[in-house]
């Protein structure tokens, strides 16, 4: 059983964690920045989808169909393809098409279409009657969006956000190919390419812990709001 003992001592060796710690930091930074970008663009695009759909606050039939079609088309592309497609865009925005900055933009763009649809469907959960009540007191569209739809859909929105962040973390594994670094990169480079199983296991374990944190945290936040509102 000395093989297993070797594995364990490798797993907890300083050498291993000298690689893992910076990778954790990279993953956290990469995920946080992409999450913020995804949140902003996903909320904005989801709102546009909601507002322009038939029966929405400002219906624009043709635009909605085309725009929704583009979102769905992007959503159906494999993330690897989207990253390849968006790296030139990163070059335009930050002047480089490789490295962590470029990858963060690519990651955000990869997950934004999916999150936009999730935002739209969370918003659609708000009962029509509440929107009509707001209209009946003369609320403007932006007031209906910010004071009715957003707060009323908050628990569902947080759950959608949780899922989207986890999807984003799972895509970060590909980031390594483009110089983004992070745990996924470690798992691929050390674990897969060089057969260093302990590196693979360490990287995967930390990824699972991060995802679990996000999942439990998001669920607790959503539950807290539901409980506060006595729903």
């Amino acid at each position, binding site marked *: 059983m000395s093989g297993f003992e070797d594995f364990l001592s490798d797993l907890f060796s300083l050498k291993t964690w000298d690689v893992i710690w910076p990778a954790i930091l990279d993953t956290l930074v990469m995920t946080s920045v992409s999450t913020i970008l995804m949140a902003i663009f996903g909320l904005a695009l989801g709102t546009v989808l909601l507002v322009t759909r038939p029966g929405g606050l400002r219906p624009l039939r043709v635009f909605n169909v085309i725009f929704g079609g583009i979102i769905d088309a992007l959503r159906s592309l494999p993330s690897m393809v989207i990253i390849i497609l968006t790296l030139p865009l990163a070059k335009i925005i930050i002047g480089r098409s490789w490295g962590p900055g470029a990858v963060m933009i690519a990651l955000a763009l990869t997950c934004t279409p999916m999150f936009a649809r999730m935002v739209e469907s969370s918003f659609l959960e708000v009962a029509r*009657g509440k929107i*009509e*009540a707001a209209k*009946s007191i003369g609320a403007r569209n932006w007031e209906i969006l910010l004071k009715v739809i957003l707060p009323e859909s908050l628990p569902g929105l947080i759950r959608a956000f949780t899922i989207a962040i986890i999807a984003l973390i799972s895509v970060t594994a590909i980031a390594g190919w483009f110089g983004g670094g992070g745990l996924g990169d470690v798992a691929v480079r050390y674990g897969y390419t060089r057969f260093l199983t302990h590196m693979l296991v360490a990287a995967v374990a930390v990824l699972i812990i991060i995802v679990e944190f996000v999942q439990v945290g998001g669920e607790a936040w959503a539950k807290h709001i539901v409980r506060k*509102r*006595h729903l």
Partner: protein
Amino acid sequence: MTEALTDTKAQPFIQIRNLNKTFAGRSGRGVAANATPQTVEVLKDINLDINQGDIFGIVGFSGAGKSTLLRCLNRLEEPDSGEIRIGDSVITSLSHNELLAFRRKLGMIFQQFNLLDSRTVARNVDFSLSVARKSKAARAARVTEILDLVGLSDRRDFYPGQLSGGQKQRVGIARALANEPIVLLSDEATSALDPQIALSVLDLLIDINAKLGLTIILVTHQLEVIKYACRHVAVLENGRIVEKGTTQDVLTNPQSDTMKVFVKVNNSMTSDTWREGEGI
């Protein structure tokens, strides 16, 4: 309120003229390709006068078009043709911004209450006031005043999820009245409530009508509500007004099929002979 009350009674406060409304049919969507987009005429040539300070009932069976008619008054539904006047304003020709401003003078309450679960009672009422751009101080004072009026002062920091149906409807009323509307529109506001709670909500509306002289339009499919609260009533049947008059006249001498059925059912249900009727 005061300037509205000085209005002469020369012409009716609310006038509805030749109002028509059609809906694109719900059938034909996702069905066979040859399904034609049918249109349903929901309101047909509606003419109605309502006096200031009245409690006016609109009654009819389910699907008669009552809600649609009521919702045309604040243009939650856009009429196809016809004219609606309230006071000096021609509702049907207001621009979008004028409409938003005018809606602040019309309160509306609903069967399902439609309160915001994300806000406490006080903040639900405050929502109306913030939409009307009242000052912070004026808002706080008005919230206190209006919650007092509907008897919910001790519930101001509760969430709707903590309230009973009757309390929720009182919040709905408070929200609708916050901006001192000139008309209150009620769409089956008591239909989801237990009888004695419904009664207390109706009493509140009657009380508000007496205290503030507020014009109230009550849509209902329950004859008891008309009988209890309304001075005048219009009967809607398949999108047409088939009868209108004082509640007493319409109830004692019903002309329309709808009202005859309503009165017959009501008489059977309130008669003291137990299970002797042949049913409806």
